[in-house]
């Protein structure tokens, strides 16, 4: 798929008092926005395949009060060869990682203090269009192979009738169904290894609802990443993990696909200081649910498809707390899911889902111990 950029995007950073820190041209990873609009086309047009000749452009949506050239969001616009168009509104939070990286440079130049909060605006200016399509290369040529969305026909209503809702599902999100036993398995892995982070790859199916033609996701199994290297502070996915997952999928012969991952945060059992009082531990930021910047990297690198999900189990003093994350309009957000079960008995840990922070690295420095 070819991406074209008829606008240049500029990041402006400000201190909290409104004083300007500087401007710099945006150098963004546009792929999540491309994926978002590609998936929107799959959903809205009922297409299973989108040709390599489709084109994506990025257009600004002007800020309602500041006006041009400042953005409230931008539109990813996908145009198919048949001239049909699909758009996706991407919020300016899309540029948060770039703004964070830019702020680090300003800290090193003494313009910001370490940990000092800042604000940013994104501006856009029409410019000679440039393309980020695959450019000719003198040592090889490359050609994208469109991979059809692997969807199975199913009835969404049937899945809804035998599931319970865990957290709210945004109208823009596809429904995600997780069997109670898969959630229990991930929680068991967390309990069995309280001193380290553990991880799994989630496999399953994308379904297309025969009534609405929209798609939804069904997790069918979690494959423990037994070859991953877990420590108290991180878990490493490497080639051995991927090979093990592919082997498991082949042996199961159910045409399942990679749809996401799960991992644990051993907050109460490994991160928190055991000498802290129960009151201090209850307030400890390490026991909050958060999706770290490294977690965002894993999701972008391994699970960049717009339907991909990430299940996080946080081990807190109050018990295991599950939270689900996925892409929404090009950024990673926390979201609800539906738990599939034989009965309507709700698993105790899913009755309350804590609100998470996403993409920050501030938890460690907030810990008072």
């Amino acid at each position: 798929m070819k991406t074209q950029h008829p606008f240049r995007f500029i990041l402006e950073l400000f201190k909290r008092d409104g004083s300007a820190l500087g401007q710099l041209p945006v150098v963004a990873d546009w792929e999540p926005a491309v994926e978002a609009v590609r998936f929107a086309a799959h959903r809205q047009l009922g297409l299973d395949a989108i040709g390599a000749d489709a084109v994506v452009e990025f257009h600004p949506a002007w800020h309602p009060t500041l006006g041009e050239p400042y953005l409230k969001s931008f539109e990813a616009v996908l145009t198919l060869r048949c001239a049909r168009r699909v758009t996706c509104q991407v919020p300016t939070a899309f540029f948060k990682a770039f703004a964070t990286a830019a702020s680090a440079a300003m800290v090193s130049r003494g313009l910001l203090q370490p940990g000092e909060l800042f604000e940013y605006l994104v501006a856009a200016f029409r410019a000679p269009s440039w393309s980020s399509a695959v450019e000719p290369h003198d040592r090889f040529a490359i050609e994208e192979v469109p991979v059809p969305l692997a969807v199975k026909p199913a009835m969404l209503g049937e899945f809804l009738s035998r599931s319970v809702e865990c957290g709210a599902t945004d109208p823009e999100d596809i429904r995600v169904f997780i069997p109670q036993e898969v959630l229990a398995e991930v929680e068991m892995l967390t309990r069995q290894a309280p001193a380290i982070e553990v991880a799994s790859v989630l496999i399953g199916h994308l379904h297309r609802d025969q009534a609405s033609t929209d798609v939804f996701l069904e997790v069918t199994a979690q494959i423990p990443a037994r070859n991953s290297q877990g420590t108290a502070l991180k878990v490493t996915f490497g080639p051995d993990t991927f090979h093990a997952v592919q082997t498991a999928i082949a042996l199961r012969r159910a045409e399942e696909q990679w749809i996401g991952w799960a991992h644990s945060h051993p907050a109460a059992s490994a991160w928190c200081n055991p000498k802290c009082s129960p009151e201090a531990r209850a307030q400890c930021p390490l026991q909050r649910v958060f999706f770290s910047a490294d977690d965002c990297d894993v999701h972008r690198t391994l699970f960049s498809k717009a339907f991909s999900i990430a299940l996080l189990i946080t081990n807190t003093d109050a018990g295991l707390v599950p939270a689900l994350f996925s892409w929404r309009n090009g950024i990673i957000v926390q979201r609800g899911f539906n738990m599939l079960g034989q009965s309507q008995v709700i698993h105790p840990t899913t009755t309350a889902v804590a609100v998470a922070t996403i993409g920050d690295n501030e938890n460690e420095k907030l810990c008072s111990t």
Partner: protein
Amino acid sequence: MRNIEPLDITATDVTGQNVVNVNALDREMTVRELLESLVPRMRLPPMGNGGRPLTYQARLEREGRHLHSSEVVGEALQTSDRIMLQPTIEAGGC
């Protein structure tokens, strides 16, 4: 005798959801050079947060092994081979 036949392969990401044909490969390239060029052209992130470079390996499916970065493409690969680009990446906690 030097092989001048075109060398065409297929490359995928770990999920198999991102696939490209890589045609007319320069046989003199090393696997490291191939990966350095291929990763951004497959729209895979070359770096993680904070600008840390990500490490990718190429798994040659025909032989079920990972190619060493110093191997020469023309010696290790055959036309119609399929390689899988596999990163080593950390999910982090606090």
